[in-house]
């Protein structure tokens, strides 16, 4: 059987979901597979809830991932992880960055940021569904930049996905080819830290 992956990248505008989506696009092309990456541009990018869909397979039609069809969700923020958790299929893997960014209605006192998001999700997960919470921001800072959260998250998921790690490295290099070699190195470091934290668990 050929490989096929549905990956959801969920976060807050400005967290780098677009770049991570591009990374998977490059990887799929290297694997000789079809791929579609659906992005959010415009209004929602201004600090709104953003979601990028990546679909990889022999032949991909819809660029959007339906509820229950995601193999992986990489949530860059807790609330966004919960908002999109229903996209995960039974037996899929949800990775959550343990960080909270208050949406405006919460900061205005008109809504509550739910407590115990990760606990609530864990309590509901069953039948081979995996949920992992990690402090990706701390690891990104360790790697050299808070902006590398997306690569920490990708490194963490690389542990579960049937894609050769060498392809991730190649794709990171390609993303920052040319003048940005130092960025490639830093993001690879972030990727490795993400990968290592899961191994340690």
């Amino acid at each position: 059987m050929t490989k096929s992956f549905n990956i959801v990248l969920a976060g807050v505008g400005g967290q780098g979901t677009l770049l991570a989506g591009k990374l998977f696009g490059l990887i799929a092309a290297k694997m000789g597979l079809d791929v579609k990456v659906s992005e959010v541009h415009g209004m929602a990018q201004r600090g709104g809830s953003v979601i990028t869909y990546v679909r990889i397979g022999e032949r991909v039609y819809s660029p959007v991932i339906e509820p229950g069809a995601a193999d992986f969700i990489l949530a860059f923020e807790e609330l966004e992880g919960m908002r999109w958790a229903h996209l995960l299929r039974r037996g899929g893997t949800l990775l959550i960055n343990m960080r909270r960014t208050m949406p405006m209605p919460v900061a205005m006192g008109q809504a509550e940021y739910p407590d115990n998001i990760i606990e609530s999700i864990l309590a509901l997960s069953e039948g081979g569904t995996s949920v992992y919470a990690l402090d990706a921001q701390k690891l990104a800072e360790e790697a050299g930049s808070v902006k590398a959260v997306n690569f920490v998250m990708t490194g963490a998921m690389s542990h579960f996905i049937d894609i050769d790690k060498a392809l991730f490295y190649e794709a990171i290099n390609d993303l920052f080819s040319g003048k940005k070699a130092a960025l490639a190195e830093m993001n690879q470091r972030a990727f490795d830290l993400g990968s290592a934290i899961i191994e340690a668990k």
Partner: protein
Amino acid sequence: MRDLKEILLGNEAIARGAYEAGVKVVSSYPGTPSTEITQAIASYDRVYCEWASNEKVGLEVAIGASLAGARAMSCMKHVGMNVAADPLFTVSYTGVSGGLVVVVADDPGMHSSQNEQDSRNYARAAKMPMLEPSDSQECLEFTKKAFEISEKYDTPVMIRLSTRISHSRTLVSTNEPLDQKLIPYEKNMQKNVMMPAMAVKRHIVVEERQRRIAADVSNDSLEGLISIEQGSNELGIITSGIAWQYVKEALPEASVLKLGMIWPLPIEKIKKFAAGVKRLVVIEELDPVIETELRAAGINCEGKDLFTLQGEYTPSMIREALSDNKNPASAFDKSALPLAPGRPPVMCAGCPHKGLFMALSRLKAVVTGDIGCYTLGALNPTNAMDVCVCMGASIGMAHGIDKATDSEMTEKTVAVIGDSTFLHTGINGLINSVYNGSRSTVIILDNSITGMTGHQQNPATGRNIRLDPAPAVDLEALCRSVGVKSVYTVDPADTDASRKVIAQAMKEQHVTVVIARRPCALIPTGRGTPDMVVSLDRDKCTRCGACLRIMCPALTKGEDGYPQIDPVTCNGCDLCVRVCPFDALISGQATREEEAKS
């Protein structure tokens, strides 16, 4: 194994297709989801491209280029087509010399738009062919084909995109560009000067052209614009664009006719397909454009009786309507999880609009709004907007309020409009207000960029699309030159001073303009530096929460109740410093200045 391909946004693929087709001139006005097309064109050195001041101008530039014998293109979002509609309808009559392609991107689901209009209605109304790609590869191929059709049939050709096509990356194989030569110019008044006597004759040509194109698609002499996959004869689907992808996902068994050209429709071919299936369903997002035509042609079909007129479609929706196949099962039941509060977009840290809207909020002004990042001023915490319709409308609406109320509301009313929007169509409104003796007040929010659509240059920024220096419109001088007697300039970060000037301007008996000038915090001239980051004096802070109420993304309430400043996001605009009643927030710059003094 496939050969290595590029992974391009639909928009980037349109640009690539135009480049490969040898396009010479591209003139567009930005608008989500169409903006990246023209931005990508700018990376091809041999193509002349520009940001036009509005869509109508952009299309007119492309018409001129086509007349001069070059392949030309203009791109816009769906509502931009309304602005460009005047030249659009008549260039259908004149036809082209060099190929002329108009790209229009719809936004079903309104990810970034003020309405959900379906541009396919324009193809029908303006009587010109419209192609609709379903992925990036087709974006590239259809763009090349559009130029060929344009020249072959002497017609402008439209390409219709939707957000999911524009903003999805899919694999694309690319080719080398054609070396397209200018078609020598020939004066032809009968064809190009649309006065009644000439236009009457051209209308006949237009109707004949539509019939010929539809017939040529039907009899396959115009290839690659229709594909039929023969499946079960129980169910036949007619669809196009992104909806085709959803159909393939949801109904693998069905027979599917995919339209690459959605206007004019190849009715003969569709009739044959219809005859071979027991049940025929049209699946199209938004308006029943195809369905209505089929019904008018006597083809029995279903469509909007099964599917909504609103928003984007999904495979699940199609499965539920037409198949016994089950939708995938989720790992989590959404209703069992705590309710997720919404996360609407907000003004960025350091956004100059924020201070201005805080001033308007304090003034309790009636605000006629306009379209741009500043439309977020309508949301919390300022709620300082009363109406927002379309680009440029704020100024005319304020004048209308002035006249309707015999100036009674005028002292309380202001129009707010961005720099790009002002030059797009706001200036027309201002000329009208002055001419007709308005007493209204207009605030131009000059952040030196077209922010909302992702930071494009405009005629007031001093740079062109390739960031080369360009003449910059002097907004103060422009306003004075159309007869505005009072033009004030304020710094919106200084909320109090801005408020006082605006309050004064609102009292004046003639049109006044207040220019609130401070660059967008996301562009180099507006970006803060690490030494500008605000800090907190915990001894002075009473945890009153005043700073948190400005809703700056860089300020959050810490677990101990004290505000926390995110040094990465803080732009040093000092708005929080100004609202703090206890001087507990310390401006980064101030510290530096003090250090310099000591």
